[in-house]
């Protein structure tokens, strides 16, 4: 049911763990739904210099986290904010329909970390990042 790419990113996740010198940390999802993603970033001059994640969730949740961090690593904030869940799905060579919400969560996770980056500087993130929803994906994005 999973592509080889998903299995690869699940078995050998990229950028996993905490980032000690992170200056942006975002967390999305909730334990009741069965998936939580925490994204750590080190942003310098509007560029995501380093990124890592921790995820509680299924194979697809771990694989989408891994792929999303790969897709935005080294990118500007603007480029990272333009990354959609569809890009994550394409890069993973597809996801089963029941797992699409994991890719939504990954997109939200990236946005949540960037929102934190702005908040730490006293800047309201919402006009830039948009609304980072919490767990609505569980019930709407199926």
């Amino acid at each position, binding site marked *: 049911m999973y592509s080889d790419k998903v299995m690869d990113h699940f078995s050998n996740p990229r950028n996993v763990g905490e980032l000690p010198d992170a200056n942006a940390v975002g967390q999305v999802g909730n334990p009741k*739904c069965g*998936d939580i993603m925490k994204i750590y970033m080190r942003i310098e001059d509007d560029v995501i210099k380093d990124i890592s*994640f*921790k995820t509680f969730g*299924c*194979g697809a949740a*771990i694989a989408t986290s891994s792929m999303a961090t790969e897709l935005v690593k080294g990118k500007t904030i603007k480029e990272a904010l333009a990354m959609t869940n569809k890009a994550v799905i394409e890069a993973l060579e597809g996801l089963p329909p029941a*797992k699409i919400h994991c890719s939504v969560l990954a997109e939200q996770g990236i946005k949540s970390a960037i929102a934190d980056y702005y908040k730490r500087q006293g800047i309201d993130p919402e006009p830039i990042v948009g609304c980072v929803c919490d767990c609505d994906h569980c019930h709407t994005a199926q």
Partner: protein
Amino acid sequence: MAKFVYADNAGTTAMSKTALDAMLPYLTDYYGNPSSIYSLGRKSRAALDSAREKIASALNARPEEIFFTGGGTEADNWAIHAALEKMGKKGKHIVTSSIEHHAVGHTLAALEKNGYEVTYLPVDGNGQISLSELENAVRDDTVLVTIMMANNEIGTILPIAEIARIAKSKGALFHTDAVQAVGHIPVDVRALDADMLSLAAHKFRGPKGVGALFVKKGHAIPAFILGGGQERGRRSGTENVAGIVGMAAALEEAVQNMDGNIVKITKMRDRLIKELLKIPYSRLTGDPVNRLPGTASFVFECIEGEALVLSLDAKGVCASSGSACSSASLDPSHVLLAIGLKHEVAHGSLRLTVNEANTEDDIDYILDVLPPIISRLRDMSPLWEEKMNVRA
């Protein structure tokens, strides 16, 4: 060669050689239709008769009380519909438990939309219903009590004889889904005094797609599938002769070896339980005492079951989980929620089910590969990080 351990025997089993050998002639040389009167047909008819006797004997039933079906799900569906049709005048109320297999649960849910009322008895943390609650739940208009003999996810064995007695003392019919019990623990339909009982061959090393419904003599149940009049007019369709022969051979073998198997399997199960409960924030699900011999079921906090199952698969171990992500829905299994687990804990469920085909080497291997998998998943889990921070 890479190690392979099959530990999902509550899901399905590998067929026993005895069952396969018994079946093969009926897939090759003896292909006659049991309804044909020439000798080739009579050969198939004799095989069916013999299979019916063997299955009846394994359950302490009479041959005429055994109806072959296309599996456990069909037997459950038939039993429920038959009871309602037969007892229609008495009422439209059904009593069941909140941990039934979907074959029962979804059938009842569909009936609820059709004007039937269903009482779902809650269970305690071990998965046991309260007999006094059952007694209170059965009413004058209750037509059927259907409660499983043993649960497929947590291995809890329910006191079916007492449940049957209560149901029948109030004039309701009693059916039990014994799919997980038959061939694994003693099942005596006379001692249980069940009106109907479902079983499925592939859970006791028989073939898939074949099962049976026991119907106590005296209950003239209505037909479920109409056609050529097979199964005494109750379940038409040319019989799955090879499947039925394989089911009978597998059950005969399972019952003959049951005492020894229970000892061997329980030992493996108990070692899994004892060792895996040493992992912090783990717990056993289901009744610790009244438990199927082969079911070792757990929850491991802060990780998700599907990720566990995939990781075990990468090591050659087949297991299963009742986590939401293992299914199409986003809710964890109704059984795990019914025993009072919180959603986030139920997500971390793992079921290892062993049978007589497993060895102590298999257990060694599972105990070798599983703890590092759990550590790895916890290391990448933000929930685990939170838990450890709170502790420190």
